[in-house]
């Protein structure tokens, strides 16, 4: 295993941060403090965290409608995110974007995205720029099983492969596009089988095992940095909540839901940390306290921030 205690603890903390941020979002959405669509990543945290652990600030990601996890894993600030979910002027986007539209150029976050499959072409452009500038930076596109049926998937992977771009395409296969089961929206079991259409490696990995996620991503990122072109990574996972908050997810089989919750990546990693002797119960508790405090502070920041005003409505349509 290539992971050490610092890395593993860091990944645990990041996963926890995502989980607790979203647990808070559930509450705030129910309390009608957070409006709009809220798509939660609960249960899929190992993917964003394992992948982003291979990246630096110079690397780029494009995210999805289910973006909180990607943003936090890439270093996004909880306070600015929370304020954005609240629609406050202090938020990442001054309240103009909301949950589905958050970006941070300094961290290489090229945006969550409300259009399924729209991040892949943009990641292709960022990867092109990485190479154009002779850097070793890479661009990673996150997307779902459902998104892998969009034309943008095909065009982006083909372009990246043809140009040997430093890109990594990360499919988070949670087995559903809204209510539509993977077996009803495609005729292959593994999305990674689609890599063959572009002459690039395709790998399928347990997406609920952060170490496995990290290892596969390390290899793909290294390959991209070396100039050997893109990889298609597929991580199998499960969305524990409905498609968005408000969707009871009645199309799911309760037994299957239960089985997947038993494979929840967070307790799993917690157990590994303890088994390896990387952290004891007290250390874990301390991390929880730290993260909970961060989230409480983020909520406070959001609640104390002013709402945007008429000036904000018309600003930033065009860059100067």
């Amino acid at each position, binding site marked *: 295993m290539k992971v050490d205690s610092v890395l593993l603890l860091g990944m645990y903390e990041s996963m926890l941060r995502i989980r607790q941020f979203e647990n808070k979002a559930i509450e705030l959405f129910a309390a009608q403090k957070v409006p709009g669509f809220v798509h939660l990543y609960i249960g899929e945290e190992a993917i964003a965290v394992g992948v982003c652990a291979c990246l630096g600030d110079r690397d780029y990601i494009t995210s999805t409608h289910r973006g909180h996890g990607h943003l936090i894993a890439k270093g996004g600030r909880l306070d600015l995110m929370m304020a954005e979910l609240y*629609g406050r002027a202090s938020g990442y986007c001054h309240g*103009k974007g*909301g949950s589905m539209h958050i970006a941070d150029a300094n961290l290489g976050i090229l945006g969550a995205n409300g259009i*399924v499959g729209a991040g892949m072409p943009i990641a292709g452009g960022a990867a092109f720029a990485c190479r154009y500038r002779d850097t070793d930076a890479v661009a990673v596109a996150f997307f779902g099983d459902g998104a892998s049926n969009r034309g943008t998937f095909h065009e982006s992977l083909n372009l990246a492969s043809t140009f040997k771009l430093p890109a990594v395409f990360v499919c988070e296969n949670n087995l559903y596009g809204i209510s539509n089961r993977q077996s009803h929206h495609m005729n292959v079991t593994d999305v990674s089988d689609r890599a063959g259409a572009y002459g690039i490696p395709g790998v399928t990995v347990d997406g609920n095992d952060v170490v496995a996620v990290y290892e596969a991503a390390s290899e793909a990122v290294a390959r991209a940095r070396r100039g050997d072109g893109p990889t298609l990574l597929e991580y199998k996972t499960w969305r524990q909540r409905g498609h968005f908050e408000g969707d009871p997810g009645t199309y799911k089989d309760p037994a299957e839901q239960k089985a997947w919750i038993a494979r929840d990546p967070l307790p799993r990693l917690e157990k590994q940390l303890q088994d390896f002797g990387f952290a004891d119960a007290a250390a874990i508790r301390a991390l929880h306290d730290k993260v909970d405090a961060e989230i409480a502070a983020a909520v406070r920041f959001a609640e104390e921030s002013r709402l*945007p005003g008429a000036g904000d409505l018309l600003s930033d349509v065009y860059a100067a």
Partner: protein
Amino acid sequence: MTQMTYMEALRDGMRVAMRSDPNVFLAGEDVGAFGGCFGQTKGLYEEFGPKRVVDTPISETAIMGLATGAAAVGLRPIVEIMFVDFMGVCMDELFNNAAKMHYMFGGKITVPLVVRAPCGAGFSAAAQHSQSLDAWFAHIPGIKVVAPATPADAKGLMLAAIRDNNPVIYLEHKGLFGLSGEVPDGDWEVPLGKAEIKRPGRDVTIITWSAMVGKALEAAERLAADGIEAEVLDLRTITPLDVDAILDSVGRTSRAVIVHEEVRTAGFGGEVAAVIADRGFNLLDAPIKRVTAPDTPVPFSPVLEAMFIPQAADITRAVKELF
């Protein structure tokens, strides 16, 4: 007549059409057992089964192609694009093929299909899930565009759209889904291309459609209190445009205010204004005003979104500028 919501009414329109014609089917993302993102298609899967109510992959170009190809060989597809905002994904399929096939091929192929597309702001759904793109569709020769504002029109236009022999874009406004009203029972159509006076008045014509009809009626009430009697003309069909109804009303009121939820520049209000400024110029006593969303993406924060959406107060203000 039955009291029902706009959503129930548009569903009733689909149901009546599907019962009366086995060539009508419905396809789209999550339109089956899930019942549609907002519940619009609830119950149709149960009644008509998986053959006629078809869940598709997230593949808007394939969905539009499914509709086009099936229509070209004689079926009558209804397809749902989950939000009108996603029409950019399949714009090529719509405008370069579905819309043009009849003409390009010298009338040899007809393409009777309906694209249902929920539109409009008001849910903090932000820039990619809140748009109105009426003018884009209006700019495509070969298709028709409807945008019902009431439950009755939602049903009647649905039936007429399904039975029309051309591609019809059916713009269902998310903000109207819960609106209740009387709806005629059974097989009942509202003809395409006919506007309707939703409130008569002699002083000014407010020309509008979709969710802005309600805002215009609200504004008209307020204006009446100030002694201004506004006529509210609901276009119902955007293209073909009911030019006669517009000129007739403006001929009586001498003043026109156009209201739409689209952003201002190159919105469909421009077309309406241009028609009046040409063919109705001599009827006018005052400038033609437009009340529209500003030229910005739709913002997320509820406070900003409320400023983005034209409100009754914006309409009364514009009307009063004409007196």
